């Protein structure tokens, strides 16, 4: 899979001529107002997605990755709130100040979304074909029969056998994998520039998982569509993503290219996550690493590093002050006190032992 090392160059050939990244998220902060207080789900994150790039956002439940995905689509609803100062730019335009008309064009037309559980994400009482048609009818001026034809073609294109028959069926008549395929057909119906896949394979078994990922990859390779993949599973990311963003407690703790994250991870949380993925070269000799403790309460986030109380290498400073990002290359950065020039030598030595041996789990 080394041909994907530089996807930007291969995709830029067929991408729109506009400059800069397709999507730019700056200082995004999202809070949910609950009875217990303001839950700061996403706390000041910035990242970008290039044209034709697959970006994976990885993190455990509740780290804010789905909220991030929904923010990009501007789908945050009360009691949620995208805080002031957040900036989301799509193709050079400010998403958060879109008019209703622009938003209508943007959602579904320029940016499609695939949800985790297609059984609940599809309307249970509407024929699958009709739901795909809805998207086409909103964004194109196709007639009903043209839209029906196109929807049938899309169902076939995502690998659903006998699409004419399936077009008329209801979501509950589809198998899990077929439903997810239909969901993908719906999201890509209007050839969006960006597809956000929010845990698209979590509800599926491993074989189907691989098929769905293959389908998404084909989408990128053939149409140059950018993809944001939200997941908690490093195994899914391994053969798929160009760049990886690791989120923890509403923050990005590390981001870099796939190679940088897998072969040269720099944050203890990334080490811990990678250590929790079973690998073929272990040959049952190694115990899977687990991460003790639970993520911090985001109603009152700790003033220091949010991972400090779960970190094996926690120092005093970690509890006192939130670390800044340390860049390792133009694309790779991590947010940890270990990389501070003042970090004591013995901690660094301990860290070296603790550090997982890098490597792509799929390449063994």
């Amino acid at each position, binding site marked *: 899979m080394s041909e994907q090392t530089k996807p930007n160059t291969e995709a830029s050939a067929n991408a729109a001529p506009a400059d800069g990244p397709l999507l730019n998220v700056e200082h995004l902060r999202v809070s949910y107002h609950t009875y217990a207080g303001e839950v700061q789900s996403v706390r000041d994150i910035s990242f970008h997605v290039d044209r034709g790039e697959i970006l994976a956002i990885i993190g455990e439940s509740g780290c804010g990755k789905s909220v991030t995905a929904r923010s990009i689509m501007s789908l945050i609803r009360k009691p949620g709130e995208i805080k002031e100062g957040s900036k989301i730019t799509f193709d050079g335009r400010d998403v958060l100040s879109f008019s*209703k008309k622009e938003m209508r064009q943007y959602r*579904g037309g320029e940016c*499609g*979304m695939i949800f985790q559980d297609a059984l*609940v994400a*599809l*309307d249970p*009482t509407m024929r699958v074909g009709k739901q795909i048609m809805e998207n086409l009818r909103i964004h194109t001026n196709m007639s009903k029969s043209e839209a029906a034809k196109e929807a049938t073609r899309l169902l076939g294109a995502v690998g659903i056998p006998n699409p004419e028959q399936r077009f008329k069926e209801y979501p509950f008549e589809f198998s899990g994998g077929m439903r997810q395929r239909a969901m993908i057909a719906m999201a890509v*119906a209007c050839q969006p520039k960006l597809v956000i896949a929010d845990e698209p394979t979590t509800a599926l078994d491993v074989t189907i998982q691989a098929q769905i990922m293959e389908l998404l990859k084909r989408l990128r390779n053939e149409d140059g569509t950018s993809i944001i993949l939200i997941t908690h599973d490093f195994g899914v990311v391994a053969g798929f993503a160009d760049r990886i963003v690791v989120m923890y407690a509403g923050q990005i703790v590390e981001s870099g290219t796939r190679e940088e994250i897998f072969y040269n991870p720099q944050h203890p949380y990334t080490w811990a996550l990678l250590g929790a993925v079973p690998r073929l070269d272990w040959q049952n000799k190694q115990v899977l690493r687990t991460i003790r403790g639970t993520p911090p309460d985001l109603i009152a986030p700790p003033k220091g590093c949010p991972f400090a109380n779960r970190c094996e290498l926690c120092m005093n400073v970690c509890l006192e002050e939130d670390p800044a990002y340390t860049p390792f290359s133009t694309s790779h950065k991590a947010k940890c006190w270990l990389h501070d020039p003042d970090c004591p030598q013995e901690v660094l030595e301990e860290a070296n032992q603790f550090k997982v041996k890098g490597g792509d789990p799929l390449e063994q």
Partner: protein
Amino acid sequence: MAKFLIRRFIYMIITIFLVFTATFFMLAAIPGNALTGKIAKLPESSQQRIIQKYGYDKPVGERYVVTLGNALHGDFGESIVNAGDTVQSILSERLPVTVRLNTQQIVFGVIIGIVLGVIAAMRRGTAVDYGILIFCMFMTSVPSLVIALIFQLTFAGSSGLGLPIIGWPSGDELWFGGWQYTILPTISGALFYVAGYARTTKIAMLDSIYQECTTTARAIGMSESEVVIHHVVRNSFIPIITYLPQTIAGVLSGSLFIERVFSIPGVGNYYVECISSRDIPMVLGFTVFYSCITVVAIFASDVLYGVVDPRIKITGDKR
């Protein structure tokens, strides 16, 4: 499907038969009937003759067999109180009145109820929502009889809008026209349904508003109103539509008091009179008539479920 229909049809026949039987024996168990009062002042021998003519001298069992046999041919007998009246003649004479009253009540009540329910669901948590909630609670707790009387007092006659206190259009205006007579009975009878449907609609709407598929619909660019029309209302109408036949059945018997208060010559009014005067053949006949409507309505509800909700398939298989 055919298997289901046949099985349900047999159940319906059994239900109606049981209603008939139970009603017959309960009426027989009550001492006295319309006849007793009517002939009390006649000489003994005449009393005997009249009782013989109506067949009340025979044992209950024999009477049951005869009545059932006649009923199977659609003959429930003649009214004791109003000689010459039969169930059929009363229905053909009075049913149009009742049907019009009820149609107006249902159309008005269900539409206003659904609209209020949708508004309450869309504006949930606001003063509008609470206002509708309080209104619904009030309307559910106060019997339509009381509301009818209050309406007469406030809006009818010399007070208020000068609407007629009682009466109902007849002749050429039987089906259409004479609206001033119909306004108060329609509204006072419909308010209960407004309340019921507003609550049902609101709950069903809230169920589907929070469905994940509304987020999907938003994510393909649908505006809020399109989401509500295409997905929320669609799904929340399943419980509402399937409840409708039972409302229709309920209204037919539920407007008994409204018909009485406004002196409307409908079936309900007549039914109440029959019951209070113990006009046994007529009570039996109308009871069977109402139970037929109810049974058919419940059946229609079940079939509608299968039609409206694709996830429910009607088959003849017993589970």
